[in-house]
């Protein structure tokens, strides 16, 4: 049977994050945690493959114990197993250290449930927002990567081939690749399903598998967590909110308003910058 791994991350719902105006720090308290938006699209695609071809879908995440909930949500949608890689020693990881631990986890998942044919990641996370972890995992495991996938065209199990459409700024690329392959999902890839009632019931009782540093025999401690992360956040600051002096254009008479607006635009440097005559 196909074995598909989906990497998901629990992230704070960025809609709810606010900045404390006094301390300039993030107010995370009370911000609900959600499964990273794009990752659900990766999971959905894996589940569609499972529906069509039959597959074992293993969902993995590195994060705090509370991320179990995110895994349960994936199980409710139809994933077979959820693995939480969690240890204080993993904390503070940047993308390099994260891709290392996730690659190790995928290898261990292979040892446990068989070789992996496909890995799905999200395009990027809402908090890290780098899109680097997916390529990092593919690189470490020496497999091909298909990033920014907007359509999963076909899977040919005989030939061990997939065809996908990659979304680029200036167009769309149809690409064929051989398994095993890592795919990062865009939100237009599909519409994640709502869990069925039996799925919810299963998830309500499901206990994710938890692996800590002790569960990896070949783990190099210098490569994980803060220590294994070459990037350092040297400072953070809140950008001065753009001070706009909003000018209201009187709209009582629309024709006059339109002319008024144009006059104001023409009074700026815009005509020069945009080459308006």
């Amino acid at each position, binding site marked *: 049977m196909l074995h598909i791994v989906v990497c998901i991350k629990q992230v704070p719902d960025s809609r709810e994050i606010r900045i404390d105006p006094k301390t300039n720090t993030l107010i995370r308290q009370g911000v609900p945690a959600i499964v990273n938006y794009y990752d659900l699209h990766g999971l959905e695609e894996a589940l569609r493959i499972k529906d069509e071809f039959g597959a074992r879908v293993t969902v993995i995440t590195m994060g705090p114990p509370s991320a179990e909930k995110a895994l349960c949500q994936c199980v409710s949608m139809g994933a077979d197993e959820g693995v939480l890689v969690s240890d204080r020693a993993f904390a503070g990881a940047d993308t390099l250290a994260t891709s*290392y631990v996730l690659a190790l986890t995928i290898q261990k998942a292979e040892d446990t449930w068989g070789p992996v044919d496909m890995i799905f990641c999200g395009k990027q996370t809402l908090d890290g927002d780098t899109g680097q972890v997916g390529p990092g995992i593919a690189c470490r495991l020496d497999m091909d990567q298909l990033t920014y996938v907007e359509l999963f065209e076909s899977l040919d199990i005989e030939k061990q081939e997939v065809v996908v459409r990659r979304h680029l700024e200036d167009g769309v690329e149809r690409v064929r690749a051989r398994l095993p392959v890592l795919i990062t999902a865009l939100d237009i890839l599909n519409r994640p399903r709502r869990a069925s009632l039996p799925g919810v019931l299963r998830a309500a009782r499901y206990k994710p598998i938890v692996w800590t540093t002790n569960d990896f025999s070949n783990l190099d401690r210098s490569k994980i967590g803060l220590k294994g992360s070459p990037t350092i956040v040297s400072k953070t600051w809140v950008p001065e909110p753009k001070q706009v002096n909003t000018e209201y254009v009187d709209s009582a008479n629309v024709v006059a308003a339109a002319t008024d607006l144009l006059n104001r635009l023409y009074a700026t440097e815009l005509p020069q910058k945009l080459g308006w005559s």
Partner: protein
Amino acid sequence: MAERTGKRKPMIGLQPEGDIDWSSYRGVMVFVEQRNGQAKPVSWQLIGEATRLAAKLNVKVMALVIGWQVSELAEESIYHGADEVYVCDSKELEHYRTRPYSRVCLHVIRKYKPEIVLMGATNTGRDLAGAIATHLPTGLTADSTQLDVDEERLLLASRPAFSEKMLATILCKQFKPQMATARAGVFEQLPRDTTRTGEVIQVPPQMDPGEIATEMIEFLETKGSVNLAEAEVIVAGGRGLGGPAAFEMLKELADELGGVVGASRAVVDLGWIGHDHQVGQTGVTVRPKLYFAIGISGAVQHVVGMQNSSYIVAINKDANAPIFKIANYAIVGDLFQIIPAIIQAVRTRKLERLQLLKY
């Protein structure tokens, strides 16, 4: 399912390969992204920024061009500010594919040792940078919007975090090169100077074509290409348009102003317009000179994607719509009356100018 037997290969990128005398790493390198021999504007923008950084560090600007029949781009790189250009020109590199491209990059980086490597934060740039940084290994800062260097030659790459609510400056002290992807439209390119000269170094491909397991079947260019990321004028519409039909009107205005049409997620989700038009957190982050927000309420997820536009015009019938908070020009009223009037006014203005020219 997959039959991959035998011993597992060791994991890639756990240790830097070869030279770790970081002091021998000098220079600022920019990866020149191209399609069919046409460079992406962000590449020249980054060479422009690299020139500034290189001057501070007193080092050379290096450009890396990979593709098929791209020798002209080597010249162009020099015209745009590069001192040295590394070119790998080969049929199997005609289309971007992660592995063959990253092998060339790795080879060049290890051999010519730049201390900083910059790539556009485009889909291709991010795809490639993620692979290379892991392989080397080194630290990689994503999507930077400010770049600088300090006395210790450290790259200070600053990037938005938490949906643009914060900025963070990120360093990599441990490894070289220091890598960053940087956003399009933020940095200024230098004026093209055809008198500039520089050195062009040919680099051989690093992968046997037979080993390459991915294949680009075809490239479908986006019709009427909505290149939001690079647009200078964007006329964006939201749910206030009431239906897909009103986008015709926006298109008209955009055409008059030489711009493109953008949209809020709400209308993209409603299917009124394609996803390519979506501006915002889960769409494209834009920085045009002029942005029209028409019938858009101004939800944070939208605003983070367009707040850095130089001028924002908001048109909304709800005087309390949050979009007005960031707008330079606000018109409270019905878009169905205002937009046609603006289109008319633009046309009249053009006509007047024409007549002025005649006499």
